[in-house]
Each structure stands twice: as structure tokens, then as C-alpha cells.
């Protein structure tokens, strides 16, 4: 029970931080962490198949996609204002 409460608190905190932090890269990293915590939540909810999919997607795929987008954005900014 205490595990669930701690995990819920961590989920809420990382989500709020990811949505309100001014630094875009920090927001993306916090979102990746949010995905990892979601995988743990699925493991606690007796859904190992969803935990597997969320681990593959939340940890690997969406992290790579978002970091790639941030890198592209920074490159554009640097080209425009040298």
C-alpha cells in the first residue's frame, strides 16, 4: 500500500514538473521518467503485458522521438541566430 502511495506521488510530481518547467530539455527528461514510473504502475496493477508495452514505448521509443525533436529545434535556433 505504501508502495502505491509513493508511486502515485512520484507520478503526480513528475507530471507537474514536466508540464511546468521552463527548460524544454528538462521537460522531456521528466516525461521519460514519467513513462518509466507508468511502467511500474502497470506492474502493480497486475498488467504485465501493458508494463512490457509501456517499457518499450515510454522508455525507448518516445524518449528517442522527443529528444530528436528537441535536437532539431535547437539546431534550427542556432542556424537562425548565429
Amino acid at each position: 500500500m505504501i508502495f502505491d502511495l509513493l508511486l502515485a506521488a512520484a507520478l503526480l510530481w513528475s507530471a507537474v514538473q514536466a508540464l511546468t518547467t521552463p527548460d524544454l530539455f528538462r521537460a522531456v527528461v521528466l516525461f521519460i521518467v514519467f513513462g518509466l514510473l507508468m511502467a511500474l504502475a502497470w506492474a502493480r496493477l497486475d498488467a504485465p503485458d501493458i508494463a512490457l508495452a509501456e517499457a518499450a514505448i515510454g522508455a525507448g521509443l518516445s524518449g528517442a522521438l522527443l529528444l530528436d525533436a528537441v535536437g532539431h529545434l535547437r539546431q534550427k535556433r542556432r542556424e537562425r541566430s548565429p
Partner: protein
Amino acid sequence: MTDLYLTLAVFLLVNLLAALWRIARGPTPADRLLAALLFGTTGVAVLLLLAYAGGGAALVDAALVFALLAVITGAAFVRRIWREESNGHS
């Protein structure tokens, strides 16, 4: 034994909460990413403990995927964001 597994899982989760603080602070982007990598490893350990505390053997497979795909985030970070030309504190 199940009680011990759950206690250790809670302990590792508290460790994760402490690492969240480093993500919020960390001066360079690499520090934030290192904390995220620690999240991955500790998450693997928590999943394994939960699997042996009655969660079923399928959670071991989830932990395997966790360990396998944590690399992709780091590789994307090093290749796409943390280039030489930008300064270290952006």
C-alpha cells in the same frame, strides 16, 4: 521472503524519489540524463523484486525490455542534443 522483497522495493522507490531531485537541479543536461538512467536501472531492480513478490514471471520479461531499451534514450541524447558546438550549460 515476500515481505522482504516488498520492503526492498519500497526502499528502492524512495531512492528514485531522491533521484528526481537531481533531475530538477542538475546543472548540465548530462546530469539530468544520468538521473534518468539511474531511474532505468532501479526500475529494473524494482520490477524483478515485484516479479518474485508474487507479480508473476511475465514481469521479468518487462524488466528485460527495460534494460534493453534504456540505451536508446542515452544514445539519442548523445547523438542529437549534446553536440560539441553548443556550450556545456545550455
